[in-house]
């Protein structure tokens, strides 16, 4: 049996490992469209703040790891999938055949269609190549404009500050991380950033970028232009599906998959940022584009490829954790609440502490928080395990900090 995995990100690598664990003899090929060894985008911020060298971003550290696991790496991008003949075509023209195929090609950063977005000193922050460029240009004292204060924008915000740049953030939405935080948390995060010397402009848009002498001039919709040495664009991502046109594989925003992470073609599966997988909370299909979901997909898809669809994916909980210069925020599931739901909120503005629990009847369905880190994973356990809260619902309504106790009480009663 020849398993072919396209895309050497976390989802593809976990899939290869899962297959290898289940089948010692299978042939496994990992088609990597990049020249670097498999690496992790998530580690890029730490490379930028010089906590790690480039090697520190690698998904596996032992140089011989993949060959020891008998996983063959092919450093060529796939340009076409010929699903009727079970072949893929590589950028160098080579044709490789597979028995079962996993598409784990991830996503790419997208840029808004504004004048000047292609200029030299305007970069995305999505690949190691981007990171090298940013590291070379974001030098102490330089002026940097960051477009987008979404999740990815906020993650690199801290890295940029640690590089000693003068930072201005321009966000189109009314608050920071609008898709992860409510107004209260968003406003607190903003004031925290401002207290650290970052200029944050919300409800604002970059309209064009112009090169002048050595620098850039960034025009804004409702404010004076900004001077910058470097502009970083973190305004969104898009699944890598272009190469699948005419492949016969159903695509929408991402690759359409069923409950086994299988596409409309029997021997082709998809996982991670490229897959439009099931969201646990609202049971809709969309691209979550987060690491925990990418690895969860990779593992389940691999199990189903080896063991003929024995593992149902009941959905991933969307979740994030963000460290913004020491202020740690999280969001899980339906943090924004559900119709007729109840909530339990505790806010201590002065100390930047916030916890917001959202309930649907007897169940916890979402959480957002600032300044809470201890035992935080139990939120996933409570939501994903659909733990019926019983008496603990009222206790959590009175004191939202008792999540761990609520979880323990129920898991003990189960054991």
């Amino acid at each position: 049996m020849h398993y072919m995995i396209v895309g050497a990100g976390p989802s593809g690598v976990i899939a290869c490992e899962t297959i290898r664990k289940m089948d010692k003899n299978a042939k496994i090929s990992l088609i990597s469209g990049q020249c670097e060894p498999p690496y992790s985008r998530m580690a890029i911020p730490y490379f930028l703040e010089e906590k790690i060298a480039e090697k520190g971003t690698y998904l596996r550290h032992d140089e011989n790891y993949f060959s020891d696991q008998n996983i063959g790496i092919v450093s060529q991008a796939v340009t076409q999938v010929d699903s009727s003949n079970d072949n893929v075509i590589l950028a160098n023209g080579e044709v490789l055949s597979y028995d079962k195929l996993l598409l784990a090609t991830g996503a790419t950063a997208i840029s808004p269609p504004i004048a000047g977005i292609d200029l030299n000193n305007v970069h995305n922050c999505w690949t190691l190549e981007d990171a090298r460029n940013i590291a070379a240009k974001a030098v102490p004292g330089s002026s940097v404009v960051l477009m987008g204060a979404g999740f990815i924008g906020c993650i690199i915000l801290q890295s940029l500050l640690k590089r000693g740049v003068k930072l201005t953030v321009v966000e189109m939405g009314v608050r920071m991380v609008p898709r992860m935080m409510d107004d209260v948390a968003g406003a607190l995060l903003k004031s925290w950033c401002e207290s650290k010397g970052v200029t944050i402009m919300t409800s604002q848009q970059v309209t064009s970028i112009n090169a002048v002498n050595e620098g850039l001039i960034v025009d804004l919709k409702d404010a004076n232009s900004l001077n910058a040495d470097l502009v970083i664009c973190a305004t969104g991502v898009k699944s890598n599906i272009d190469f699948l046109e005419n492949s016969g594989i159903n695509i929408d925003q991402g690759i359409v998959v069923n409950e086994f992470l299988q596409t409309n073609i029997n021997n082709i599966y998809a996982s991670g940022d490229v897959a439009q997988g099931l969201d646990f909370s609202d049971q809709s299909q969309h691209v979550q584009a987060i690491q925990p979901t990418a690895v969860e997909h990779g593992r389940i898809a691999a199990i189903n490829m080896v063991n003929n669809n024995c593992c149902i994916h009941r959905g991933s909980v969307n979740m994030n954790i963000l460290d913004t210069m020491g202020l740690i925020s999280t969001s899980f599931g339906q943090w924004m609440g559900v119709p007729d739901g109840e909530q339990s909120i505790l806010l201590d503005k002065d100390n930047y502490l916030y916890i917001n629990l959202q309930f649907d009847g007897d169940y916890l369905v979402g959480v957002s928080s600032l300044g809470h880190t201890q035992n935080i994973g139990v939120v996933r356990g409570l939501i994903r395990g659909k733990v019926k809260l019983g008496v603990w619902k009222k206790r959590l309504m009175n004191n939202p900090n008792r999540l761990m106790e609520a979880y323990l009480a129920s898991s003990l009663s189960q054991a």
Partner: protein
Amino acid sequence: MEKALVINPDKCTGCLQCELACSYENEGVFNPSKSRIKVFTFHQEGRFVPYTCTQCSDAWCQQACPVDAITLNLLTGAKEVNENTCVGCKVCTISCPFGTINYNQNTGKVIKCDLCGGDPKCVSACPTQAITYIDANQTGMEKMRQWATETDNSPSNSAANV
């Protein structure tokens, strides 16, 4: 034979010796807030429940880690955090559905139970044998591990009085 920590909350008196032993072993200080094992108190019921990582087999924390900083100790079965590799991204802390891997603000890294390399100090510190270290397959721990492995098993359990 691989061993596992087995916790019997019925025997726990809430003396916190385990937390002290753990923080001393791992952080060099007697400070319960730095312990990897935590005793949770249920005042209403007068109950104490020590709790820590179950070293689940397809560990969520390990798979989610972007830089391979959590690895399996083949001798003990523990999932161990390599401090030098960890970048402090905390994604493991939201991935573990048991909430047993935690961020340490002082070091900027995460901490979790590593079974003290096969000689867990909480076990020797516990005066009532509420925490024991015994053969893995005779433990109820197996059940929890399964829970952890079956990504898609939703145990519909109800919260009774502890």
